[in-house]
């Protein structure tokens, strides 16, 4: 039975779901874009607040879900990213001719799914969360379906995601076949006497399913196409909330399940990490489409993050927390700028790099935000990204994984090339270039404010990281 504590721990998820229902009913009653946004934001904010309130409970374990510090962090990040996406969508969808309100419904559902995923302590909730996260995303990606690219993105993600889910399910079945359990503690107990071949195959297939969501190489091919085609806010959500949730669950199972601790599995994970960070950066090298480029960049960043999966100790959890936060605010900032410059009735999203030429001389602050975001992605000191990179390298050095450290160094060096290319484009001025512009009052709107806030956060976290660092140092997984 659910206890009072369990209920309290569940409050944020319940709140998000309730908001979703409210929004749905609201749409049925009367379409009102602004109100919908307001309600969504209100609901998400309340959920965030409740998260803070109930964050003091300590680890709470229900049969299917676990609420530990990592869950809280993950939920917090998902809520923040959903909030940001909601505000971006408001600006983005403002002039959209079709139905606008359903987007928020999908967003809220996906957020709820992500939150469940971060708390998953059972393969059933894992599956449930993952699907609840993914299904609305198909809709969101194809939301501006009159645009071919958007539709294509949605369908691609749908089909490939289904394939990945098939692997995941099969993997779960194999795990069950080996151990007779679906809950993670049970799985761990079942493997205590040794990892059987089915279990190994099972975790392998589960890994495939999750790696797809994280676009770990070689399961990454969908990423650039979907990033490029999907509408800005949807891609923002995909790049942030969806990945954070999937990463947390991966971290959880890798840390818990002994099958991942064998030498071979470790080597495999390290190889995947190395491959991903190098190939992600290599792919982005000459990319001229900003959204695609950010897609590749996210591949690379999850390559770096895989180092935490490989090491999977106390410091690794802390590192993951830091890195995810820095990644989150940076990516939100970058996509936020892209979204603010785009709008579905103005044709394709402003993703080609040449739209950004000389942006600084027209919209200095907006360009400055993108600059900071790019520098942060590149990991330049005094931005959040550097703190993340610092942690990842520290983790690699501490664990004496020199190959991975070398990979990070090389990957970062390659990465600089394209981040800098984007950055400098913002400052070049050459006459006769096609221009895309944000509305003049962008800075006063919610989306603009959020973007500015994110930029401030990026710098603040680079300059004064110690509160976040302190907070993250308290992180631990319930299993350990």
């Amino acid at each position, binding site marked *: 039975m659910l206890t009072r504590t369990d209920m309290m721990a569940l409050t944020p998820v319940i709140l998000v779901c309730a908001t979703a229902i409210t929004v749905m009913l609201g749409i049925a009653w009367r379409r009102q874009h602004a109100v919908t946004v307001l309600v969504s934001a209100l609901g998400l904010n309340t959920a965030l607040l409740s998260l803070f309130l109930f964050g003091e409970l300590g680890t709470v374990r229900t049969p299917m879900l676990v609420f530990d510090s990592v869950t809280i962090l993950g939920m917090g990040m998902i809520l923040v990213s959903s909030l940001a996406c909601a505000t971006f969508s408001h600006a983005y969808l403002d002039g959209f001719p079709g139905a606008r309100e359903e987007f928020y419904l999908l967003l809220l559902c996906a957020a709820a799914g992500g939150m469940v995923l971060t708390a998953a302590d059972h393969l059933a909730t894992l599956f449930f969360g993952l699907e609840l996260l993914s299904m609305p995303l198909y809709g969101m990606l194809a939301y501006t379906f009159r645009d071919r690219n958007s539709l294509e993105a949605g369908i691609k993600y749908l089909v490939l995601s289904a*394939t990945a889910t098939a692997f995941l399910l099969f993997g779960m079945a194999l795990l069950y076949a080996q151990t007779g359990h679906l809950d993670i503690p049970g799985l761990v107990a079942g493997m205590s006497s040794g990892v059987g071949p089915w279990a190994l195959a099972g975790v392998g297939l589960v890994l495939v399913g999750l790696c797809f969501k994280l676009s770990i190489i*070689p399961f990454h091919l969908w990423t650039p196409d979907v990033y490029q085609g999907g509408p800005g806010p949807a891609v923002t959500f995909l790049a942030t909330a969806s990945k954070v949730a999937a990463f947390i669950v991966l971290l959880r199972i890798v840390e818990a399940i002994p099958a991942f601790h064998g030498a071979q599995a470790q080597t495999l994970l390290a190889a995947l990490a190395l491959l991903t960070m190098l190939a992600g950066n290599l792919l982005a*090298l000459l990319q001229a489409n900003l959204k695609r480029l950010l897609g590749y960049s996210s591949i690379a960043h999850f390559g770096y993050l895989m180092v935490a999966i490989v090491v999977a100790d106390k410091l690794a959890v802390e590192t993951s927390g830091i890195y995810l936060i820095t990644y989150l605010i940076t990516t939100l900032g970058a996509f936020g700028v892209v979204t603010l410059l785009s709008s579905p009735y103005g044709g394709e999203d402003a993703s080609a790099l040449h739209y950004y030429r000389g942006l600084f001389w027209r919209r200095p602050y907006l360009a400055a935000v993108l600059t900071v975001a790019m520098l942060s992605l590149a990991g330049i000191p005094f931005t959040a990204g550097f703190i993340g990179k610092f942690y990842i390298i520290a983790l690699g050095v501490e664990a004496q994984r020199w190959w991975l450290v070398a990979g990070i160094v090389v990957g970062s060096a390659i990465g600089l090339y394209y981040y800098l290319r984007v950055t400098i484009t913002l400052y070049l001025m050459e006459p006769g270039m096609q221009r895309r512009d944000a509305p003049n009052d962008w800075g006063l709107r919610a989306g603009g404010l959020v973007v500015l806030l994110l930029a401030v956060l990026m710098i603040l976290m680079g300059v004064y990281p110690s509160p976040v660092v302190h907070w993250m140092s308290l992180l631990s997984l319930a299993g350990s």
Partner: protein
Amino acid sequence: MALTLLPLTFLLPLAGCLILSLGYRHLGERASAAVGYTSVGLAALVTVFIVIDFLSGDRTPQSLTLWTWVSVDNFRPTIGLMLDGLSVTMLGVITGVGFLIHLFAAWYMRGEEGITRFYAYMNLFVFSMVLLVLGDNLLLLFLGWEGVGLCSYLLIGYYYEHTANGMAAFKAFVVTRIGDIFLAIGLFLLFTELGTLDIATILDKAPALWHRGNPIAEAAALLLLGGALGKSAQLPLHTWLADAMAGPTPVSALIHAATMVTAGVYLIARMHGLYDLAPTAQYIVGVIGALTLLMAGFAALAQTDIKRILAYSTMSQIGYMFLALGVGAYSAAIFHLMIHAFFKALLFLSAGAVIISCHHEQEMARLGGLWRKLPLAYAGFLIGGAALAALPLVTAGFYSKDEILWEAFAAKQNGLLAAGLVGALLTSLYTLRLIIGTFHGEQGSDKARHADPGKGLQHGLPLVVLMVLSTFIGAALTPPLADVLPAGPGEGVEAGHTALEMMASATAIGGGLIAGWLFLFRRAWLKRVVARGPGAWLWQFWHRAWGFDALFDWLLVRPYHVLVRWLQGDLIDALFLIPATVVRLFNAGLVRTQTGRLRTYATSMVLGAALLLLALAMGY
């Protein structure tokens, strides 16, 4: 008293240089010249005072430390001056002869563009040269040493629009700099071994530390010699001097005859204690001197440019000085240095007078028959030439050169003595060839036919004073070296001196007679001899000064150019294109996988999953 005035000897020229370089916009030609020679003139006055004061005192070396240049650990060179017999002698030559040449230049450079620049360089040169001889430590000496080199470079390349002049200046600087490297390494060695660069301390410490013939002492002596060879244009670093004649003639007189080129002689004399400990190095000094004086003597025979003849003659005379140093006759070397400064300055200034009078013509073939038109220059050439050829008794050159030969004889260095005698013969030959070619015979061109004699005090006074100094009157100025430099081997010995004097005189006069006969009466025959066959070959060989230029060109210059051209594109940097290209290739390859086709993507997932499982299975 004299000591406190000592800094003025270089500060005055420095002030002149500063005034000229900062105010060059506002100074006219006359004002520039006036600043230029007045500053050196005042320095000369101060020098006169110092010399009198010094000579009337007890002549002990004194030193004046202005400030510590830099002090780290035991490395504490100072800006310190030393006043002793040697530096007084050098100081007198530099400021005295320097002033006369500065004065003459006011006439010579009249109407030239950039005369302010000229005087600024000249003053800077005097400043550096004075520091060179006054410095009480080797680092300060090195400062002067490099400073004069720079000024020499600038003045050779004074006519900057002519590429040839620029190249000559460049060459001069580079070749002397090669010598300077040796000097610098010598400094490092001396400092490392002795812990000081102070000259007096070095000369004090060295005998206590090293016995005679100690390899380190030999090495140090040879390294310093390397520096001296470059600056004094001795074999094999002599090739720059003849080309250096591209500069204005007063420059050749001051820098490339009277002062800078003798710095090497000064250096070795200054460091005599070291050479006393290094007999091999000292012997090499003598041998190089002998070889140079012969080589340059022959080369001087086959030159057609009057300044080049004088340049080779300078090399040859410095060869004599080196020869003297090589046999341990330091005083004789310095004495010859001083006398040489007088008569060679005279010769160069006279040559300058000829060149300006004949509208910048210095090719001997296009001069000739000028003795009536240019009597003062002719007199200068006659007296200077006589001193150069060491005409017995009446000329100063006789006394100084004779002493060198005598010391060589007394040191029982018969080879060196023989070289000296042959050199004397050569000297007479080329000197007479020069005088006859320039002043007698037919005028070779319109420029010579329309020669305007120089006029005025600035033209006349320096020539006359130097003429006086080049005669036996000049030889009466005995430098006060006895307290500074050890006695030469010939000191106090008299046996055979008269015989040697007779022999030397006979050589000089005999050479003169042969030359007179050859160049006055057998001209046609001479022309035929050098026109073809072995005579022509020899002429060319000597004309090109034994082919050293070609040798160095082949040995050093060309490989250098090849190397530079080969490296031009920065090969090492180009290596870094490899990783860049690899990255690009990978990028190209990986981007191809992004086909945009769903089936490819799905396939890749399945394949990836299969691989992943396979990898896991292999470990199981």
